[in-house]
Structures are given as structure tokens and as C-alpha cells.
């Protein structure tokens, strides 16, 4: 099921970000992402990419501007509400993610219990395992997983509680061609089955697999970012 154009999932408008010494890093940054979209944030250097992701997941507060996430302005809400919102609506996989040193199932159960997802825990875990093709590796310890399996599990942990938005930082680049393809299929599956909005952040699209008919053409899903001219990187 693909959700066609619907509500705005992310709306970043006129965003300024200054360093602690008042130097501009991002200036008048704007972009948007609609519900059910799969987009690629690319062509940015590592620092700017991470800054934008840090802003989206509430780790950094902007100097000025607005970030609407699932209809709420995260700039104006308090830390506790922001934390709860992140817990409910946003799944995030950082670039250098760490996995618990447990079996695949136990990793997912750990998060389910930590978030008190007791209701339908098994259902959610099984659904996640199924959609990410991790069913056959359920008894593997994380250290025994392939690199693609590890990334899939990291994504599984991020989407276990069925958030509306998934943000992945630089997960594709480190994988082999085959692994990237498998991961893109898994993400496409999640996107279609759950109607999940996905933002993939990668340094460049050149190194990501292209040419599969049933995979989205990466140049078609590139996120369009507008930025003012007086930012340091503009």
C-alpha cells in the first residue's frame, strides 16, 4: 500500500543554525517531505548532513526558523514532549550504530520492553522480522550477522514501535552492491507495506545501486533543499 500525497511529514522552513560562537553554519534552510514519501538527502558534506539530521531528531535546536515534524513544531515544544514525540513518531538509525550484544529476537524484545510495548509485542516483533527478511536469523547473535543483516536489524529496532517517519544516516554506502540492493528492497517493502515515510541520508548517490526496475530511481527521490546565500557552505 502506498499512501499518495497526503499530509506534510516534515516541513523545515527558513532554518538558521549558528555555532556557539555565533558563526552561521546553516542559513535559511528549507525542505519538506510528505507522508508516505521515500526521499534521499544527498550531495551534502558529512557535517551538514549530520547537522540536518540532528535538527530533525531534536538533538540540536536551531537558532531560528521552524521544523514541523508530524504536524508539530519541534522548535517550540519542551524537551520532555520532544522526547515523547521522538519515541512515538520518529525512528532513527545513526551512521555508526551499535547493536545490543544479544540474539536478534532479544534485541527487538529489549526495545519493546523498554518502551513498554507489552501489548502486541510478539506481533510487532514478528511483523518487523518478516518485513525485513530477518526471520531466518532470529536466533543469530548480532555479532554473527552479515553487515546487511546488522543494518536491517538496526532499521528493525527503529521501526519496531511503528513510527511514522524513519530517518537513516549513511547506511547504504558502507555495504557491498548486493547488500545495498537487499537493503533498498527491504526499505521499499517497509515503505509500501507500512506507508512509512523514509528519509535516507547519504553522501552521494553515485555509489548507491541503480538500474533495478523495481527499485526507486535514486535521482527521482532526491530531496530538494533550498538554502540562503549567506550561509557558510552556500
Amino acid at each position, binding site marked *: 500500500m502506498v499512501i499518495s500525497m497526503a499530509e506534510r511529514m516534515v516541513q523545515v522552513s527558513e532554518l538558521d543554525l549558528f555555532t556557539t560562537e555565533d558563526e552561521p*553554519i546553516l542559513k535559511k534552510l528549507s525542505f519538506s517531505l510528505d507522508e508516505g514519501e521515500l526521499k534521499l538527502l544527498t550531495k551534502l558534506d558529512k557535517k551538514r548532513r549530520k547537522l540536518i539530521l540532528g535538527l530533525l531528531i531534536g538533538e540540536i535546536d536551531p537558532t531560528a526558523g521552524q521544523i514541523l515534524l508530524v504536524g508539530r513544531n519541534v522548535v517550540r515544544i519542551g524537551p520532555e514532549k520532544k522526547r515523547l*514525540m521522538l*519515541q512515538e513518531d520518529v525512528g532513527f538509525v545513526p551512521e555508526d550504530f551499535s547493536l545490543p550484544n*544479544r540474539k536478534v529476537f532479544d534485541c527487538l524484545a*529489549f526495545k519493546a520492553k523498554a518502551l513498554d510495548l507489552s501489548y502486541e509485542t510478539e506481533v510487532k516483533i514478528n511483523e518487523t522480522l518478516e518485513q525485513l527478511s530477518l526471520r531466518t536469523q532470529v536466533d543469530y547473535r548480532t555479532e554473527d550477522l552479515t553487515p546487511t543483516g546488522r543494518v536491517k536489524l538496526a532499521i528493525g529496532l527503529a521501526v519496531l514501535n511503528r513510527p511514522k517517519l524513519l530517518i537513516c544516516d549513511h547506511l547504504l554506502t558502507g555495504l557491498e552492491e548486493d547488500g545495498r540492493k537487499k537493503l533498498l528492497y527491504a526499505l521499499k517493502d517497509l515503505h509500501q507495506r507500512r506507508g512509512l515515510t523514509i528519509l535516507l541520508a547519504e553522501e552521494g548517490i553515485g555509489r548507491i545501486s541503480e538500474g533495478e526496475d523495481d527499485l526507486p530511481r535514486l535521482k527521482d527521490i532526491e530531496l530538494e533543499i533550498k538554502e540562503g546565500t549567506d550561509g557558510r557552505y552556500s
Partner: protein
Amino acid sequence: MKAFFFILKELLGQLRVKKAAFSSLALLAAFVFLISFYLLFLARSQPANLATKESFQKDVDIALQINPTFSDEEINQVYLEYRRWEEVENINLILAEEIEKRNLRLPGELNAQSDIFLVKAKGSAQDLMKRFQAEGAVTKVASLDKVIQESGVFRLPGWIKSISLISAALFALATVYLIQITVKNIAENWQGELQVLRFSGVNGVLVKVALVTYSGVPTTIGAALAALVLFLVSGWATGLEEISTSMPALINRSFLLMLTVWSLVLGPLLGLLGGILGMDRIDEIWETPSYKDLIE
């Protein structure tokens, strides 16, 4: 709060495999036991002797046990009579209630249930004792010189006390260090779990409080074990006259209760201190990857 209890439960589940935690527990138990033992030998914690150099009554030679069937009036008459004796320089009446209240230690042959006279002889104490032994009002006579020689309170030499204190301090430091290492190890082993918790929006303070609480658990158990050992030793010592005479604090229940409370306060505090000292590594791991650093 549910996240806090869940994390604490998960951490406690790790105790089975965390040998460092168990070592720290054993060390703390030994440490608390040492400190407690040291305190047992402190003079101020021990009951006073009826008559020794550091006694309840100084400068007396003889203790007399008064016939328990005597009334107060009869005892008073006997007291007045003995005061008039030429061989008696001074005499004091110690009531049985006072002996019990002050937990005074008596020479072996005297009974703590009776009132006692303490007498200072003007001349030969031996002659005076013989005269008292012929008295019907007195059931038993004891020489306090003999008591001093035979059952003077056993004192630890100063150097042993110093070594005990230094050892206890070293044990305490080792315990804090071990707890700190344990907490850091958990943080290292839990990098994945901590990241899952962080990006799931779990409050970092809850995670840290759970870790600090966990660090207090093995030391609390250690302290409780030490208190238990003291009570067991106390029960054993009560039945052995020699031990209960030389280490009277062992059978003093209120003193043992005080030690227990002290242990149960100190135990968790030591653990919490170790946990707090290990918190820097937890912060480091919790903040990785750091986004705030990018704007500095």
C-alpha cells in the same frame, strides 16, 4: 518510570555473569566486617568493669555479694555497720538494677542479680576478706585485684588497630574502584542497548539513575552479609564465657543494631559512589554519536 524498572531488572539479570560485581560484594563484606570488628574493640563501646583501673568505681579492693533475701532496710543496716569497722576505709552500695542498666562486668564468682558492696580496705585486704566471709549478710566475697589480673579486658594493641583501619580504608577504596570498573564495563557492553534507549526517546537520566542504583545493590548485599555475620558471631560468643568476657560488645544487642544500621547506610553509599565515579564513561557512550559537538 517503567523504563527505569525495566533497565534495573535487565542490569540485575547481569549479576550472574558479572564476576567483578561479585568480587566487590565479597570485598565489601570483608571490609565492613573488618571495620565492625575494629569498632567492637573500642574501649568506649565496651561495658565498664565493676572495678578496674578504667572502672566504674576506682580504688576499691573487695566486692561483696549481699544475701539476696535481705530487705532494703536490712541492707541499709549492714551497710551502716560495715562503715563503722576500723578495717574499712570506704564502702559503696551498688544496686542490682544499676549493674544491669550499666551492663557492668562482675568478677566471675559474683551474681549479677544481687546488690553488691564495693569496699576499700584500710589495712590488709586479705584479712578484711576473711572477716567478711564469716559474715551472714554476705554470700560471696571477691578480690578485685584478682579480677584485674585474671580477666582484665583484652585490648588490641595500637598497631593492630592502625592496620585494621588502613586495611578497611584500602578495602573501601578497592570496593569503590571495582564498582566503578563494573559500571564502566556495563556501559561498554551495553553500547547497543544504550543507543537503542537513547534513540527510542528514553530519558537518559532514568538510565543513569538505574545504573547508579544497580551499583549500590552488590554493596548493600555485602553490608547486610557483614551484619548477619556479626549477629551470628554474637550468638556464638554469648555461649562462650571467655569470649563474652574479653569481647563484651559482641553480646551487646543495641551496639550490634547500631552497627547494622551503620553498615546498611555505608554499603549503598559506597556502591553509589562507585557508580557515580563510573558515570563519565556512561555519559560518553550515551552522547555518541554527538550532534551538539558539531555546533561548537
